[in-house]
């Protein structure tokens, strides 16, 4: 039999430790909330970025006039002409050019890595792709400026700073994005598909193009969308090779100015409405990117199901 004193003691002990646990639970709760707030930083950041870009650039669009701003073909800040159509077209053309160059090469390289390359070659190609992703965009731009620009000038005429040069550089720059995501989605195609096709007597190449690529379609599409995002958002590399004339190009060898270049080139000295018009250019770019993000989200969600 336990004495009353002992029972009382043990009750007291238990109460003490309850207090202790309460404190501990409280601390755990606080820290969990810190984790939660950190996780929300991404949401907060996107929200704050959107709000500030729109707040700073939105009014200018209406002041200039939506139609004037989006469809105007003259950009002369000193004369108060703020038409960014040439820049929108410049960005779109350069991006299309990048896709034409980068996507086929990227997908074929992804096929090589995922399906054809023996291990030792994979060990060369994979790190190369990673390294391509790591090279700073100024270095790409500089390389383009000294290698592609003179080459284009010599062979096709013109100044060399051109839509073509921008497309080639951007095409190279989106390779890692296209390759990595395509490889992942090719690798996640169920083995049974491949085996089924091979068992029916289809060749490996036929299996890749008739079965695996269609099965990896949504992943590859996501890769292309991310590539578009990277191309349309790239700034410094493009500035160095594109010529930056705010005119709608007539040919591949004409210079272009992209939306990103427009912002970066003039931000340093712009003030007043001119500066706001640059932020407004940012708004349009931002809208493009958000549309791409939403498309991407739709595709990847579908792929997830």
């Amino acid at each position, binding site marked *: 039999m336990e004495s009353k004193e002992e029972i009382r003691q043990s009750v007291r002990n238990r109460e003490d430790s309850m207090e202790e646990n309460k404190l501990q639970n409280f601390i755990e709760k606080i820290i969990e909330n810190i*984790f939660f707030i950190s996780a*929300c930083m*991404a949401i907060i950041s996107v929200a704050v970025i959107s709000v500030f870009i729109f707040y700073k650039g939105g009014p200018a669009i209406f002041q200039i006039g939506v139609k004037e701003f989006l469809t105007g073909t003259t950009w002369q800040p000193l004369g108060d002409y703020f038409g960014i159509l040439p820049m929108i077209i410049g960005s779109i053309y350069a991006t299309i050019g990048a896709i034409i160059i980068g996507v086929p090469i990227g997908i*074929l390289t992804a096929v*090589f890595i995922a399906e054809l390359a023996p291990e030792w070659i994979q060990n060369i190609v994979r790190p190369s792709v990673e390294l391509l992703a790591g090279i700073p965009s100024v270095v790409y731009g500089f390389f383009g400026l000294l290698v592609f620009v003179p080459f284009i000038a010599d062979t096709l005429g013109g100044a060399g700073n051109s839509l073509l040069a921008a497309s080639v550089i951007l095409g190279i720059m989106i390779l890692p994005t296209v390759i990595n995501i395509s490889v992942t989605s090719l690798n996640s195609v169920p083995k049974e598909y491949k085996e089924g096709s091979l068992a029916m007597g289809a060749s490996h*190449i036929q299996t890749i193009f008739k079965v695996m690529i269609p099965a990896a379609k949504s992943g590859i599409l996501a890769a292309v969308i991310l590539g578009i995002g990277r191309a349309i958002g790239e700034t410094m590399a493009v*500035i160095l090779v594109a010529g930056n004339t705010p005119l709608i190009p007539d040919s591949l060898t004409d210079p272009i100015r992209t939306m990103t270049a427009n912002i970066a080139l003039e931000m340093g000295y712009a003030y007043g409405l001119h500066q706001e018009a640059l932020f407004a250019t940012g708004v349009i*770019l931002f809208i493009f*990117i958000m549309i791409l993000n939403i498309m991407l989200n739709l595709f990847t969600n579908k792929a997830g199901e």
Partner: protein
Amino acid sequence: MNNRKLKDNLIKILIYAASLLTVGVLAWILIYITINGIGEVSLEFLTSAPEGESGGGILPIIINTLYIILLTIVIATPIGVFAAIYLVEYAKPGKIVRIIRFATESLAGIPSIIFGLFGYIFFVTVLNLGWSILSGALTLSIMVLPTMVRTTEESLKAVPDVYREGSLGLGASKLRTIRKVVLPSAIPGIVTGIILSIGRIVGESAAVYFTAGMVSRLAKGFLDSGRTLAVHMYLLAKEGISFEKAFATAFVLVVIILLINFSANKIGASLDKTKV
């Protein structure tokens, strides 16, 4: 039958050509920069300050870059790691998690020039931090956040659940379980995230240009402005100031990126080994 074989072989040739082109372009860039840059790099170049428009070295610029890296990592690592802990260890699947993921994806997709614009309005102007290392680092912290979150998430997910069960089964609290058992196993992944982020910071120009300023001297503190290597390189190339110095700077940048990739791979490989 033969026709099919011919077609297959043609496609194979195309695939090989594309892959060769991918690796070839990389080799071309690396060799081109090395050949033209290595001769311009000397101890003096690395240890002296720029002089005038086109002379001198890049020491203060290297130090500015280190400042920005340090500050960005100090700000972004805890937030990124905590966010990943929340997503992997606490969050129940649902609307909030979906929104957080969408926001993280979106953040990763925002072009650096937009970050630059935002940093310029918000940190430089509204918060009145001026063009400074701090403004640059805060802007870059947001930029590298998705990388941090994702790599940490991956490594937390790779920690076997039996460790968590074992610890909780002993009556350890959730927080203790995370601190003592889960996080230590996830450290290589977190370090990889940090290294990848450093790579991004070193290579970034557009976002830093508008937030950290472009003066070529050594920043006197976190509230002073200073250009980083990538910005320096951009200005040299853009203004056509000095291609020799631009090559030398490009070479330094490329060497840094090579080192970063190499160490990230090394740590990644050791991570795979511990998993087995």
